[in-house]
């Protein structure tokens, strides 16, 4: 066993932490309030070369693994940037995985260097209103017509679609009912987010407002065949590859958020005096914070194990799911307690913890609910019967 990060990993974490610290809580508060994309932050990360962390060196990136990717997202989240910071770069960091593994050489050469230098913003178009968590139930349909596909359908909860030039778009090319297996018949594209045929409508939401979440109404969108990733009908398999890493990255973001919240809670507990003593002396306040630290530290270990397994080509589904579950739980609890320490929701924006709280709450729901993780663990790890 060895529990230390490699020198590279530690350097990456420290450097990104330093870089992110240049964007203070006020910056994020203002971006969140103004519903404004954090361009300065995004550019700084791009200039530092961090967006290409997992992109192969042949395309201008660093070719590192998911461990390094998770460290970057954790660091930006923990800086106080939270989900606004993480979501602004999330897809650049690892979202191009299907393109890297299954995309054509031309697609890679045209796009990956632009991801690395920050020039190309992308979003991921999978979820649909009527499919919910069951991805095989999507109905957005891509009909082949000569050298292109014609796509119609609806997507929901598409992060950063407003700001994106391109979209990774999952469609059906064979209807659910006509597919031999329910995971067959899905096809993945990487194509222009053409506003003429895609109406992008932001969803107003409780938190993480610097990066948009959107509904997409797709109306006769023409996609050239060259924009298809890999083979027709194998799209589900291509995105499946990315599910475990995705959970790990979300876990890293939740973990960072919890750290940021706990840091503020401890500071406030030491600084704020009532009846002549710091409120942090109260066990009623101190014990929950100590508990949160223990839970965050344990969740971090699970996350590290998961990314280590993945990077070493070992099975990691159990750990990836648990990391998401434990980090989201610990992160939210830390944020909730930080809020309580500060005297509740009221004085929120002043202390930033309300922003952390709103974002941390989201991570218990999206991109995967805690309950679905428990279903996975119950069925596939414990071997209990399927419950839904």
């Amino acid at each position: 066993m060895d529990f230390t990060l490699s020198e590279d990993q530690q350097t990456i974490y420290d450097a990104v932490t330093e870089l992110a610290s240049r964007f203070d809580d006020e910056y994020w508060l203002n971006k969140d309030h103004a519903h404004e994309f954090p361009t300065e932050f995004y550019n700084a990360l791009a200039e530092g070369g961090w967006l290409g962390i997992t992109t192969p060196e042949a395309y201008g990136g660093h070719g590192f693994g998911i461990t390094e990717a998770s460290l970057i997202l954790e660091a930006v989240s923990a800086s106080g940037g939270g989900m606004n910071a993480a979501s602004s770069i999330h897809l650049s960091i690892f979202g191009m995985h299907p393109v890297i593994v299954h995309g054509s050489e031309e697609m890679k050469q045209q796009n990956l260097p632009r991801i690395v230098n920050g020039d190309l913003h992308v979003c991921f178009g999978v979820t649909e209103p009527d499919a919910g968590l069951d991805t095989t139930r999507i109905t957005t349909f891509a009909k082949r017509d000569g050298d292109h596909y014609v796509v119609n359908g609806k997507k929901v909860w598409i992060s950063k679609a407003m700001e994106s030039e391109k979209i990774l778009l999952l469609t059906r090319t064979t209807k659910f009912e006509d597919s031999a297996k329910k995971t067959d018949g899905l096809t993945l594209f990487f194509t222009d987010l053409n506003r003429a045929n895609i109406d992008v409508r932001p969803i107003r939401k409780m938190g993480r407002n610097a990066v948009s979440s959107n509904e997409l109404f797709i109306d006769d969108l023409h996609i050239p065949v060259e924009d298809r990733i890999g083979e027709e009908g194998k799209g589900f398999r291509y995105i499946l590859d990315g599910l475990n890493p995705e959970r790990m990255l979300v876990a890293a973001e939740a973990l960072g958020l919890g750290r940021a919240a706990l840091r503020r809670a401890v500071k406030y507990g030491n600084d704020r005096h009532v009846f002549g003593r710091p409120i942090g002396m109260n066990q009623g306040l101190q014990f929950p914070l100590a508990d949160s630290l223990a839970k965050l530290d344990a969740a971090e270990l699970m996350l590290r194990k998961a990314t280590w397994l993945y990077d070493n080509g070992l099975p990691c589904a159990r750990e990836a799911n648990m990391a998401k579950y434990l980090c989201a739980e610990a992160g939210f609890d830390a944020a909730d307690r930080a809020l309580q320490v500060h005297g509740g929701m009221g004085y929120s924006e002043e202390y930033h913890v309300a922003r952390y709280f709103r974002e941390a709450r989201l991570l218990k729901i999206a991109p995967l609910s805690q309950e679905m993780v428990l279903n996975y663990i119950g069925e596939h790890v414990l071997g209990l019967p399927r419950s839904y």
Partner: protein
Amino acid sequence: MRWALEPEQEMFRDSLSGWIEKVATPPRVRGWLDSGDPTEFETALAEEGWLAVGTAEDSGGAGGGLLELAIAAETFARDAAPSSAWFASVLALPALDAKTAVTVIEEGRFAALVVSADGPPDTSARFTVTGNRVTGTASAVLGADRAALLVIPTDAGLYLVDSSSATITPTALLDRSRTTATVTLEAAEATRLEADAATFLAEAALRAAVLTAADSLGASTRMLQLSVEYSKQRSQYGQLIGSFQAMKHAAATVLVAEEASRSIVYYAAASVDERLPDAALHAAAAKAQATRAGSDTADSTLTMHGAIGYTWEHDLQLLYKRAKLNVALFGAPAVWNERIAQALELSAA
């Protein structure tokens, strides 16, 4: 033992519910919250005489006590109505002389008790008095931005100040259905009130605790109702989500907490009204139980809704934030726990 509301209490509850459903429709509530201007609601509330409930008839009131006010708080919360002006006024009214009380109630000149909602009303810092001039500042005063009259606890008793002589700076709350403000007085002209400050504030603390608890109760009722409705519409994996056991158990747990909270909230209200020896304990227990349950309910029902509950469009977020604020409003659980523990005399002092 009787466990039903008195007929007149039931009538009051039903007619207030009927009125609020008509007046505070979801789009209207949205309008008030988005514009930050609930005047329409507040005016209607006063004009229709609802502000009179809970005050004695000889002070221009319609009678009734804290139990009636708790029913009102519960009802307002259910529709996320902007009730800060009402809440602030019913806390302040017992300090006012009959003549002033009448103007509050009949003219809808809302009043506010100038104490910080960061803690129980009886722990708020006092203002200072020189002659009949009052100086000081209090932050997070519920409904102060909506009040025409301010009741100021000072080191020399209670004083009445016209809000025009105060500097009132609203604070943005995450819960947009309530408002607080910082109130600053610099040698403001004031009138001495007769009510005994200590007695009044001690009782105001209990009233604030019970009414905040009742608010959480109302919010919980609505959050559960929204969840049940949603569960009948939303399918996942080919089934209505209401058929999943996790959903059923979550809803059942919420209902259990709500029933238990309702029992203790009504009991505490009656106990304060009847000045039972343990009234302070009951009020503290109601505050702790119902606001904690409300916060848990907020989290459970948000989970039941999934991502839709996180959107601005869905009413759940209004109630969610309201329930969360109630936990801290007028004193975090820790503060009320200290009071309860004191009553238990844990250490042989």
